[in-house]
């Protein structure tokens, strides 16, 4: 059954509210969007709403961290990453403040709200900041682990919280080690490296390839930074082609991070992602088709690379 990533985020926060006295939650008038309203209901004294003022919330979070607390600042990715970029850069990252940024509604799966609200550049922006660590969980079970892990870590962490409800791919026993990608499915011919919602499409693409006798590995990169270089190089030595898949612009995002590691390796490489475009209004599944974020496109890219390499 599909479940909400945001509800999982809120449930993890509530668990932290019970077990970690240092955790506080900050909002910018989007508690009913990020679902932190559920935390607020249980722990009103640990919840601070800054109103529609993301910059003040982010710097305020740094202030809380300087007082020894562990603040989770929540809003939509567009306004957190976008509006408050310089606050994240100069206050959170430059000072290496112990602030957790949990931003929802990344990518085009935001849907009908349209391009103004669809952040397709957050991974690129966050990735270039020293001290920042980035988690992009693929399902609700993994979301909770990301939140618990972020609370235990010192320093800035960005958690990317996708909007749609999704089925769980991982389970309670799946490891969540920052910077260590998980092999979801083994394969020898091609490797699909995916993050967030695209892990689901990667598995569907692998199914289709398998029907044709092509063995496709699928790796879930729940951590975008630090990127799992060992996994990437290990796969580069094993398969003939690597395809990345992300709900994000291909400029500077997850695929770029993989490409930076693959530079000079003898392996075919292609990216599935948003091609230098803004989003637009539509239903998420329509938008995924429009922007090529589909199992078919991943499948096509794999086939294209394998045919080039002689299979």
């Amino acid at each position, binding site marked *: 059954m599909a479940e909400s990533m945001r509800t999982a985020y809120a449930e993890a926060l509530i668990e932290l509210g019970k077990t970690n006295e240092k955790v506080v939650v900050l909002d910018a008038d989007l508690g009913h969007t990020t679902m932190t309203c559920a935390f607020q209901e249980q722990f009103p004294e640990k919840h601070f709403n800054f109103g529609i003022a993301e910059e*003040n919330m982010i710097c305020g979070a740094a202030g809380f961290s300087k007082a020894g607390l562990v603040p989770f600042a929540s809003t939509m990715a567009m306004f957190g990453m976008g509006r408050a970029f310089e606050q994240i850069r100069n206050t959170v990252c430059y000072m290496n403040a112990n602030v957790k940024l949990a931003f929802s509604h990344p990518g085009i799966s935001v849907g009908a709200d349209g391009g103004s609200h669809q952040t397709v550049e957050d991974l690129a922006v966050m990735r270039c900041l020293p001290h920042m660590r980035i988690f992009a969980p693929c399902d609700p079970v993994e979301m909770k682990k990301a939140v618990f892990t972020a609370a235990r870590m010192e320093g800035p962490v960005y958690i990317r919280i996708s909007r749609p409800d999704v089925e769980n791919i991982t389970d309670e026993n799946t490891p969540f080690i920052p910077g260590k990608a998980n092999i979801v499915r083994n394969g020898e011919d091609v490797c699909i490296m995916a993050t967030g919602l695209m892990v689901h499409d990667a598995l569907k693409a692998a199914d289709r390839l398998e029907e044709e006798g092509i063995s496709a590995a699928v790796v879930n990169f729940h951590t975008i930074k630090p990127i799992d270089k060992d996994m990437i190089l290990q796969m580069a030595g094993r398969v003939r082609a690597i395809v990345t898949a992300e709900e994000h612009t291909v400029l500077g995002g997850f695929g770029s991070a993989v490409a930076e590691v693959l530079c000079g390796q003898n392996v075919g490489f292609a990216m599935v992602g948003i091609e230098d475009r803004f989003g637009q209004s539509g239903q998420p599944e329509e938008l995924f088709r429009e922007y090529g974020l589909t199992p078919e496109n991943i499948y096509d890219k794999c086939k294209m690379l394998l045919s080039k390499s002689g299979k």
Partner: protein
Amino acid sequence: MDYQNKEKELQRDIIKMIYEAGSGHAGGSLSVLDILMVLYYDVMKTDPENPDWEDRDRLVLSKGHACPALYAILADRGYFPKEELWTLRKLGSRLQGHPDANKTPGVDCNTGSLGQGASIAAGMAMGAKYLKKDYHVYTVIGDGESQEGMIWEVAMSAAHFKLDNFTMILDHNGLQIDGSNDDVMGIGDICGKFAASGWNVIRVKDGHDFDEIRLALGQRCDKKPTFICCETVKGHGVSFMENDYGWHGKTIDTPTYEAAMKELGGR
């Protein structure tokens, strides 16, 4: 303590630091110096032996470019050796061009990008209240800085959260990089704006009168943050720098250095 002599000594330190560095912000450092002196010598609970003491009062110099004044005071109070002042802005120095709390003992917060320090300071005050700590958080902003939208986000939030453990001091010298506030972007009746936002507002007519500053810092108000507007002189203490916006961030050359030091009673 002999405030007048100490002030002269610190003014000389500021001029020498900026001269040795080859760059820096003399005008704003000299205008804010007396405010910081009252805070660090008289008002704030601090311990130079234990800079990270959990219950200390905090100071966030939101107008971070004026850090030579802060560094001069911190060195004088023994947070680090005075000789280190002459490394300001140089490679490997603990004294960065703008405050870096991870490098400099006694600096409570990174600042430099205007507006952010005030907001972090308000967050610290919120954290202190949440933890039921009784330390006080001070922030010093510039008048040009008050053109940043963030200052007005803090004006709202600090009143909303009833931060009576939070004091914002305005170093009101009337000048910024491109000219006077009025020429660049008038800040209007700033005391009236903070009062209307629900703050306890205090005016200090002479921001270089130690007693007046001290008196103002003692006037807190239950359930309200305090805003203290100090009328100051940019470049205070060096006649040819006073009230001249050109001295916001100009390099101090050797003849200027010698002339300034002579006025300040140095060699």
